[in-house]
């Protein structure tokens, strides 16, 4: 049952970490657009302070999530090089420019744009500040789309010059405009909405358990509930999660694949159920979500971790769908792999998962702390004479 080769372990290790950081990356993109909406509404309804309060709270969570996603990108870059060195020899002309482009966009966003988002609200005009928020959301979306297109292209390679080594992409439009990639983008957006919605509901429920919610917190709770419902709705309506096609040859290890599939199904069912209870109560009482029964609030606190876990597992399954090939029909996993011992890869995988568990626990812990005590604006201190 557990007769695992080093190649299978390497796949599991790589795709589990790729998926872990993708969750943070995708949620950062959706949080970025949420901040754009907050800024936009602030301009539209200047007298309504709720949107600005929401912006001030969620920009901190956005910054934290973005930092984890960025650090994860460094981790994935090193890990992909260490595990699949020959992939880059074959894929150099495709992956090379992409890596540089993504590095450049990340560089600009992290060093200039988020700095303005976090620290320069008082020193810039409101419109200029909003433009920076928009730039961050747009830039992060470009990175996410490029990465999703690349992952999709690995499953459906198109636009290549025939019989070239390394693979030469002659038609970049085929890379960007392939239908499968955009299905995947839509699916990922729905999953990310579910993730962010779950997080917002979770934090708001935590807040509601300790104190009466103010107007901005109530608004956050409602938006979170909407995002969760929309995410779940799109997933169910599209039937994406339940398509056997999605999980075709899903796992390197069939048992883990089946287990993960059932876990995703169960988590989504639980989330749908809690979302349904939440909305039924809301429609019946016409009261704010903060006044939900305490037991429902306790259940909703776990909506965030549950939705992120569902998102992570789905991403793992989606990544592992093509059993044999890294680049479908062109490069196998075995060709790309740098031979390592089973014991070494197992040990590294265990340590890596432990590290991810610590990061996830730390993130949840800090999000709940933020819900309890709030976040205050940060001054950037330079301790020099």
């Amino acid at each position: 049952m557990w007769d695992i080769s080093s190649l299978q372990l390497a796949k599991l290790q790589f795709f589990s970490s790729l998926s872990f950081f993708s969750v943070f990356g995708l949620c950062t993109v959706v949080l970025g657009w949420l901040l754009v909406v907050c800024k936009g509404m602030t301009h539209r309804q200047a007298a309504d302070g709720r949107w600005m309060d929401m912006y001030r709270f969620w920009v901190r969570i956005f910054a934290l999530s973005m930092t984890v996603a960025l650090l994860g990108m460094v981790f994935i870059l090193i890990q992909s090089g260490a595990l699949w060195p020959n992939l880059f020899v074959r894929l150099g002309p495709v992956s090379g420019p992409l890596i540089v482009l993504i590095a450049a966009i990340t560089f600009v966003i992290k060093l200039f744009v988020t700095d303005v988002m976090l620290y320069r609200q008082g020193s810039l005009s409101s419109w200029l500040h909003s433009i920076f928020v928009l730039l961050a959301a747009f830039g992060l979306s470009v990175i996410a789309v490029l990465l999703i297109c690349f992952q999709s292209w690995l499953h459906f390679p198109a636009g290549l010059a025939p019989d070239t080594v390394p693979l030469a992409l002659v038609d970049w439009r085929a890379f960007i405009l392939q239908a499968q990639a955009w299905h995947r983008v839509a699916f990922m957006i729905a999953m990310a909405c579910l993730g962010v919605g779950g997080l917002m509901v979770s934090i708001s429920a935590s807040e509601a358990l300790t104190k009466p919610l103010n107007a901005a917190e109530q608004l956050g709770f409602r938006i979170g509930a909407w995002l969760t419902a929309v995410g779940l709705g799109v997933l169910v309506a599209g039937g994406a999660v339940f398509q056997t096609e999605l999980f075709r040859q899903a796992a390197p290890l069939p048992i883990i694949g089946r287990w993960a599939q059932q876990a995703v199904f169960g988590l989504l069912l639980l989330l749908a159920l809690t979302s349904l209870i939440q909305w039924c109560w809301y429609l019946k009482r016409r009261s704010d979500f903060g006044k939900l029964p305490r037991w429902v609030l306790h259940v909703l606190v776990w909506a965030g971790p549950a939705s992120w876990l569902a998102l992570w597992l789905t991403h793992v399954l989606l990544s592992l769908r093509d059993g044999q090939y890294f680049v479908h029909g062109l490069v196998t996993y075995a060709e790309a792999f740098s031979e390592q011992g089973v014991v070494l890869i197992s040990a590294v995988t265990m340590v890596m998962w432990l590290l991810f568990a610590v990061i996830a626990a730390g993130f949840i812990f800090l999000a709940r702390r933020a819900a309890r005590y709030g976040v205050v604006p940060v001054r950037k201190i330079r301790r020099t004479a």
Partner: protein
Amino acid sequence: MIDTLAGSLGLNSYDPGFWMPLLCFTVFLGVSIAGAVLDGFDLGVGMLMPFATSEQRARMFTFLGPWRDMNVFWIFLGCAILLSAFPKAWAYVSGALYLPLMLLAAGSLLRGVAYEFRLRALAGGRSVFAAAFAFGSLLTAFGQGLVLGRIAVNFDTEPGSQLFSVFIALCIVATFMLLGATWLLMRVEDDLQLQARGWVRRASRLAAAGVVAVSVALGMVNGGVFFKWTETTRLPVVLIGWFALLAMFVLIELVVRKVQRVRILIWLPFILTVLVVLSVIAGLVFSIFPFFVLDELTIWESVTGLGTTRLLVAAFVLFLVVLPLVTLWYYRDMLGKERKAKDVSFMKRTH
């Protein structure tokens, strides 16, 4: 000299096939040097934290804040350039470097996340994240040291060579600690400076041993490198370089002893340590050049293809303009003295 080198490769020095890979290599080298120095003292301060009191630790954390965002990028940029421009070289060595690279990846992830989490944590959780930051720094430095060690022994897998790689990794850890300690010595006064003096003296000896060990191993294991160093025309320069390097370590030790009495010397240990790091990198590049992987792949054989290299060069030219400016901006206060200020936190201290 450049014409001779191009000629030996059967190329003209104006040929893009010659200068483009060279430019990519120069950018990679620049990023590596910047990472070793600018992220190096950050790593060093991180590793020294367990030896400081909690009040000193809080101050040390605050020192690292201004360039935290920028420091995340050095490894990222280095890997991005290596993977995109020199995938063949990467493929050749990375199989032998799986464990060191994973240590490096895990360490940089842990220290980055721990720093951010600590900023937002309450008093109780801060010590946990501070310990994680120190451990992450240690893993990163050790991983980098192992990479260097494995290169120095030419990826030999004999137990003796593996042990030697571990020894070199420990020496690299000491070198980063030395960088961090000399930087603290320059920035602070009071008890922390006194403590930093002790750290400098302890770390400098192990760092010196490491420099000697890397050089000897590189020369002994690789005949080509030994020949390059001992060639009659180069030998005097190499010897002068060697003595200068050892003199720098002696000078660091002497200056640290006098630093309390002669305040003007306070900058000297840090500058000397930076010079040591630069000398080691320069020595390594001199030994290996024009190879990327010693005796196996030259810089020109490691590139992915001229079409891709052209795209990369266009991006790098932009980086060459922007990166130094951004670096200067971010690190503008790096050499300044400490000013007393409150610790930074995102959270209200309600208990």
